[in-house]
């Protein structure tokens, strides 16, 4: 981008002097990003969480030796060398209720304790990370992709196309975000034979449903800024120059408009991922996000609600994971924004 190049000027060329090491704006931005220690820290943390979460099967099978998706109410484990039942009956005179064991802090035996169904909380938190990340990142990527395509179409064609898309986005935007997600999710989940378009059937327990729903509700958040940028860029001189040179239609879009607009999307992406992860957690907490047998951080927090006063770790652990992940993404996202457009405002409003 012109501004980026201008700000990071390399030594001026001198005639006959050494070769000027020119750098593309992307490389310059990349270098700026890499030099930003805090942002890199965020990226590393995020990747670490991703790796650990996707290593969930390894942990569950080989380290903890549990199946975190099957009930194990009558199971036992070893604590301090002794065999203890996973669920212990209440004491006193009445013996009401069954309480799962709390954290053992033993990585091989129910590190964070068990939940009400005798399942290993630590494994579920890791597997939960898998689902949350898949839904979070997947929906953000889908959202950005489709919103960009729609914005390009709208901004470039203008007229009716623009009106229709913009008004539709207005409607989605006007829906209280969570509300729309809850409505759609409730309805789709209670269409018990899954939802289908033609031959494609999506089961309620599939991760596709929350992914698509969340991608859908955040479309306006990406569409609006991107469209704004498309409109702005379309009026710039270099586009006019390209048109004068005979470029038109999709070639124009791809060669001139898109590269300049893509930075908006790149800056938005980490922030959108952070938001989608939080939204997925909220939906799963309300039991209309990720469905059993899949676990997600939000659903484990929901499981922990009934145990909050006696076994708070079931609710605390997944929450900590969410905070770390979203924090890492926010920090990294800040770094990306600073690298690509150091003078941009904090929020790119639509």
């Amino acid at each position: 981008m012109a501004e980026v190049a201008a700000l990071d000027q390399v030594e001026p060329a001198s005639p006959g002097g050494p070769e000027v090491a020119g750098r593309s704006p992307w490389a310059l931005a990349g270098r700026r990003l890499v030099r930003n220690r805090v942002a890199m820290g965020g990226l590393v943390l995020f990747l670490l969480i991703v790796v650990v979460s996707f290593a969930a099967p390894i942990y569950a099978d080989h380290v903890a030796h549990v199946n975190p998706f099957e009930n194990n109410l009558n199971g036992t484990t070893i604590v301090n060398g002794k065999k203890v039942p996973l669920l212990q009956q209440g004491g006193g005179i009445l013996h009401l209720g069954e309480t799962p064991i709390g954290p053992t802090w033993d990585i091989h035996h129910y590190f964070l304790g068990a939940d009400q169904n005798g399942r290993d909380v630590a494994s579920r938190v890791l597997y939960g990370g898998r689902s949350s990340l898949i839904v979070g990142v997947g929906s953000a990527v889908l959202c950005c992709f489709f919103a960009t395509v729609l914005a390009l179409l709208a901004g470039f064609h203008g007229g009716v196309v623009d009106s229709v898309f913009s008004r539709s986005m207005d409607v989605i935007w006007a829906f209280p975000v969570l509300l729309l997600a809850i409505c759609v999710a409730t309805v789709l989940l209670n269409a018990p034979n899954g939802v289908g378009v033609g031959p494609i059937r999506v089961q309620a327990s599939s991760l596709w449903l929350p992914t698509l729903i969340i991608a859908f509700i955040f479309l306006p958040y990406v569409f609006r800024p991107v469209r704004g940028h498309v409109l702005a860029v379309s009026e710039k001189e270099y586009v006019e120059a390209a048109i004068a040179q005979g470029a038109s239609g999709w070639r124009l879009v791809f060669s001139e408009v898109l590269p300049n607009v893509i930075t908006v999307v790149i800056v938005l992406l980490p922030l959108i991922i952070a938001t989608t992860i939080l939204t997925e957690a909220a939906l799963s907490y309300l039991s209309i996000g990720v469905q059993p047998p899949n676990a997600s951080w939000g659903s484990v927090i929901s499981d922990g609600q009934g145990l909050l006063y006696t076994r708070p770790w079931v609710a605390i652990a997944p929450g900590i994971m969410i905070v770390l992940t979203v924090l890492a993404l926010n920090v990294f996202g800040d770094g990306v924004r600073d690298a690509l457009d150091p003078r941009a405002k904090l929020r790119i409003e639509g």
Partner: protein
Amino acid sequence: MATFIIRRMLSLFLVMFVITVVVFMIFFHTPGIDPTRQIAGRNPSAAAVKEIKHQFGLDRPLPIQYLLMMKKIFITRDLVSYSNQGQRIVPEVVQAAPATLSLAFGAAVIWVVVSILMGLAAAVFKGSLVDPVLMILALIGISMPVFWVGELANLITQSRWHDTFLFHWVPPLGYTPFVQDPGLWFKGLVIPWITLSIAFIGLYARVLRSSLLEVQNEDYVRTARAKGLSERRVLLRHTLRTSMITYVSLFGLDFGALVAGATLLTEVVFGIHGVGYLTYQSIGNLDLPTIMVTVIYGAFFIVLANAFVDIAYAWLDPRIRPA
């Protein structure tokens, strides 16, 4: 200016209309959900089912049903809930609104005051340790899911430390109307207010700080400094005012969203029976009339807030007025 306002209002109505149609289609047209069954009660006879269908207009074509519902909401205002046919919905929503409004207002006061202080401090003390520390706190605030924070708050204030001097005053979860007991109203809302405001404090502190820093480099600020004004005066009289434009417009949108029912998660966690809670419950019961009214209520406030912010922006900054 006037035409701009009128056009925004028109577009508001259009958007509301589309939203109601969408909600209607979502819930009415869904397989597996039969409103007749909800109204008919338990184990009704076939004849009763047929009569109810007719009585509630459920055997008419969908567009007619939609119009009937709209009529009942706006004109006759006697729309009843499917889950409880003794319950009129519009008064029910009106009764629930004060809880949501109390929650939203209180949280807004806290978050505005704290975020302005934080943002100012971070900008003023940029370069020292204060800035990054405050910003990290802000980031952490944004990163915490509000329902989780609420759960932890409950754990601490209701259970673990309830008996200490810190939290013994925290009443059991729930909302007490102000007119019934102002003291209890206040005590019961303090923890929810703080919980709800945390994420917003983080966000707005960052927004303000960033706006302030950006404006610092503007020409008119440099002129003010060159004239010999103290940093503090420059900050408070020049940069802060300009920075508030972004802040205020964002605030308008977020506050509108809260009033509209984005308080849902906080209400559910703290047992506050506001509009958000009502919405959530009615969706779980697939009680279409209640869903419809709460969605209309919510969408109205959001669209209104949007329009208001647009108008305020246009008034504040003539450059942005559309042709």
